[in-house]
């Protein structure tokens, strides 16, 4: 027995527990491995398997032809036309041969390799570059396909591109296409960055129906991305057709009349210059008109000027053209985005409020009793503030008038007195906003829910809104808050109220059809490419408003007298005997000089319906800074009614310069 032996024995004694610790450590480590393996292979395994499958396949999208947009009679407005383009998929093009391939391609196209290289860099999105800028004929396409073996990653495909058949006609309603913005990509999670989507109008609103479903070629690839074989093909599903409620012929006529109205307005301004050179209005540039079915909400025509051609966006619009169009506000659809004070066209709502709520000027208790439509109205409010209001006939009096006369002659004094009666009786009570309640009920100052994007809400002022503004945007309102003067302004469509022409059209339609508020809409149905109807977009009632038939009948009669003998008499003279069938109201929003000293002319309005006894169409015309409603807007509306009623459309002549 040596020392070494004793050493051995002792060591074994001390080592045993330490070996145990080591054994535990190893067991723990291997157990962790075991459970991790369990997790990766059994718990998460199916997901990893999916990734493994995705690893070895690559797919190439086949664009789906976009659905057509047709008018209510089936006339094609927008369609898909095949266009041959060269597409280069870099994931299929080995980097070391890229230069050779591009050189060979350039030779076929008869271009310099630099041009081709630049085009690839410019149009690439991810791995795919689509060379839309090179015009390819069938022979060139054939040549490229023939040399496929030496041109890996290069293909010629028939890419469906958008084609618009009607130029700028209905441009705002149709909208346009474009590559998705970052915001679009967030809004539409299934969208890729290279496929154009609808950006405006029907193209945007009905994008999901129009776009169809892209197909794809599926390939098996190796880790370097080279194609080993094609596994399968999924055919694209063409997009659906959207049939509009609009009628190309009505639209064309309305657009023509609108341009004529702008010309008329500018002609009037020239004569005016000589009279009053200090207040030279800028030329009239913008106008809009809407024709809508009173009993369905279907829009027959929606025109806005200036307009644009949707086709200029196909294949990408250049920056200069885009800026030029933007500067002219050509992309604004004024029918749903042009917010302006509705001026006297709003008096119809004050009229309905007065009759329904039985509230009239002081000392008057029926619609038949008259007051003096004096040149001006001075009023001292309870807080001692005094205001002096002038009627548009100032310095003349317009004689004694009852409610009917006041609407016909657009007498501000009468409606101001109604506002004062409301103020006296109900100020600071929950009834003080009765006019706004009626306005809101028939669709003023709120979205019409038309099936077009970017509709503006407008503004309908009341005490609550002013309080909100005081809190959030105090610079918009005076410290005193909502005052009687604000209500007086509002009842004649001035001051704290701006609306879109479509809102006014909806309001008139809702009142004159007896109280049914329809959702205005531009699309009638979604159909397959073969014309089979997939979905009919039925008229949709948003709400019903309780208006007595007597009120409606009385209003119809008074609106008729506006065009027969009131502010629109001269404008509607050309309608002859048919004038009996029409009723409507002029409006002239006040001219003003802005903070930069620029003079802004009055905005001309006319809203009317026909036939008046059983209204079918409502027409709203607004000529932005175009002058008097009676002089400019009413003649344009008259021409539209001539067309709708099937009589000869006569040239526009200036109507009576009223209301200013």
């Amino acid at each position, binding site marked *: 027995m*040596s*020392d*070494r*032996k004793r*050493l*051995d024995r*002792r*060591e*074994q004694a*001390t*080592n*045993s527990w*330490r*070996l145990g*610790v*080591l*054994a535990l450590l*190893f*067991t723990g*480590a*291997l157990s*962790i*491995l*075991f459970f*991790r*393996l*369990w997790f*990766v*292979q*059994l718990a*998460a*395994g*199916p*997901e*990893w*398997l999916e*990734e*493994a*499958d995705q*690893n*070895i396949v690559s797919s190439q999208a086949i664009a789906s032809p976009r659905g057509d947009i047709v008018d209510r009679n089936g006339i094609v407005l927008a369609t898909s036309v095949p266009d041959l383009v060269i597409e280069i998929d870099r994931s299929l093009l080995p980097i070391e041969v890229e230069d050779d391939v591009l050189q060979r391609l350039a030779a076929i196209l008869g271009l310099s390799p630099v041009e081709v290289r630049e085009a690839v860099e410019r149009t690439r999105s991810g791995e795919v570059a689509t060379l839309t800028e090179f015009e390819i004929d069938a022979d060139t396409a054939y040549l490229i396909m023939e040399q496929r073996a030496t041109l890996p990653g290069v293909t010629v495909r028939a890419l469906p591109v958008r084609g618009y058949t009607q130029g700028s006609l209905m441009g705002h309603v149709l909208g346009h296409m474009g590559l998705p913005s970052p915001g679009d990509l967030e809004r539409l999670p299934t969208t890729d960055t290279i496929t154009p989507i609808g950006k405006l109008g029907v193209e945007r609103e009905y994008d999901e129906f129009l776009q169809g479903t892209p197909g794809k070629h599926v390939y098996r690839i*190796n*880790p370097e991305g080279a194609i080993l074989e094609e596994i399968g093909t999924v055919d694209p599903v063409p997009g659906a057709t959207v049939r509009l409620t609009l009628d190309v012929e009505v639209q064309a006529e309305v657009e023509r009349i609108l341009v004529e109205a702008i010309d008329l307005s500018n002609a009037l301004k020239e004569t005016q210059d000589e009279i009053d050179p200090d207040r030279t209005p800028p030329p009239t540039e913008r106008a809009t008109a809407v024709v809508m079915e009173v009993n369905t909400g279907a829009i027959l025509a929606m025109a806005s000027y200036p307009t644009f051609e949707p086709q200029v966006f196909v294949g990408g619009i250049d920056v200069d053209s885009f800026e030029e169009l933007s500067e002219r506000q050509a992309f604004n659809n004024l029918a749903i985005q042009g917010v302006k004070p509705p001026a006297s066209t709003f008096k119809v709502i004050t009229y309905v409020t007065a009759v329904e709520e039985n509230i009239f000027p002081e000392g008057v208790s029926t619609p038949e009793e008259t007051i003096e439509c004096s040149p001006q109205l001075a009023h001292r409010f309870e807080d001692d503030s005094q205001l002096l209001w002038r009627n548009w006939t100032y310095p003349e009096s317009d004689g004694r008038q009852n409610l009917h006369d006041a609407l016909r002659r657009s007498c501000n004094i009468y409606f101001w007195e109604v506002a004062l009666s409301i103020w006296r009786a109900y100020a600071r009570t929950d009834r003080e906003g009765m006019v706004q309640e009626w306005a809101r009920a028939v669709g003023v100052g709120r979205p019409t829910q038309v099936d077009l994007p970017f509709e503006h809400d407008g503004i309908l002022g009341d005490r609550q809104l002013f309080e909100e503004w005081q809190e959030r945007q105090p610079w918009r309102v005076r410290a005193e808050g909502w005052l009687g003067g604000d209500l007086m302004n509002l009842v004649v469509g001035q001051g704290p109220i701006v609306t879109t022409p479509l809102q006014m059209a909806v309001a008139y339609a809702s009142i004159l059809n007896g109280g049914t508020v329809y959702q205005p809409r531009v699309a009638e149905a979604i159909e397959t490419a073969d014309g089979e109807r997939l979905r009919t977009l039925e008229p949709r009632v948003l709400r019903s408003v309780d208006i007595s038939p007597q009120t409606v009948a009385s209003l119809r009669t008074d609106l008729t007298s506006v065009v027969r003998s009131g502010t629109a008499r001269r404008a509607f003279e050309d309608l002859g005997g048919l004038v009996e069938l029409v009723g409507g109201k002029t409006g002239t929003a006040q001219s003003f000089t802005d903070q930069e000293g620029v003079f802004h002319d009055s905005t001309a309005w006319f809203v009317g319906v026909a036939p008046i006894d059983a209204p079918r169409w409502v027409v709203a015309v607004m000529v932005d800074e175009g002058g008097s409603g009676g002089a400019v807007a009413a003649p344009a509306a008259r021409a539209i009614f001539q067309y709708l009623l099937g009589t000869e459309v006569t040239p526009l002549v200036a109507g009576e310069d009223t209301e200013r």
Partner: protein
Amino acid sequence: MAVLDRTLEGVGGIFEDRPRPTPDLIVFVLMAALMALGSVMVYSSTFVRLEEETGDPTSAMRRQMIFAGVALVTYVATSMIDYRWYRRFPGLIYGVTMVALIGVLFAAPQKGATRWIPVGTFQFQPSEFAKVALIVALASLLTREASRRMSWKTLGTALLMAAAPSFLIFLQPDLGTMLVVGFITVGMLFVAGSSIRQVLVLGASGIAGAIAVFQLDILKSYQTARLAGFLDQTSDLQGVNWNLYQSQIAIGSGQLVGRGLLQGTQTRLSFIPSQTTDFIFTAVGEQFGFIGGSAVILAYAILIWRLLIVAAGAPNGFGSMISVGMAALLSFHVFVNIGMTVGLVPVTGLPLPFMSAGGSAMIAMAGGMGIVNSVWRSRSPVSDRPEARDL
């Protein structure tokens, strides 16, 4: 065998002259099985590419089988050499190792590192042998003292002995191997009887060292990138995490029973870089699933268990410590290698014992296993023959 024994007797009595218990067959069978499986896995991940490139789909597997054969012969050889013989010249073993490690620094770099010395058509990787040599040298050092306590001097000497090759390996650079050396050293010091205080000092200096490594910016950028990638495994899947991501796809897609031999797309189509070497386990995971993967882990568990049994039953401290060192070596390699393929630890280049393609690690480890087997064979077959435990 007896003839060979007698023939070599004169060389210095390195072969035992008494009848000994039979070699540990379990260890031999498991090792051979893992080597065979490794060769098949090498084939499965190379045959498509090799067929395409050279028309010879089996060349990588054949090469691996040659290594396996050499490794098994080495195992038998070291099994038969009496392990006590090494104790006569631990300094020489250590010295030769150091010379080789210094020599490798003058070899031409490959893949950004100088780990290999060319020997004919093969590449010799000294650091793999250095690990086994260090185990033997440390075992010798740690059992030299008669005292029950480990002296600070011994501890210091041991650390210095480990630090020198660690530094040389670090220069290659080979972070993984450096960590193995550290783990083996700590494991052996712990079992050899270092006090709690000494263990604490070791731990503290280890942490200080790790902090120093980061603070001094010693790590290569790819090493810090791998570490950052590991901490956010969903990031940069096309870059630093590509290996880890593809590796997990392969293993995960195997699920319970695997996709079948030669049926795994990840393996067949070479989606995983370094699959035959550091990522060989992914081939098992994809093709044989959880059943195959856990069988491999079980095989290593049994091997480690056998090493600990030998450590516990060794006739002396030297043999015991060698076994402990080998157990530490094997378990660290297995844990880190498999762990990195399943996203448990950061990617470090440590081969999977007996399976990863490459000869040096396999031969060195088989040699180490053989030495332990020699320890096993020298234990007393029956308790009434105490002299068998004498040197």
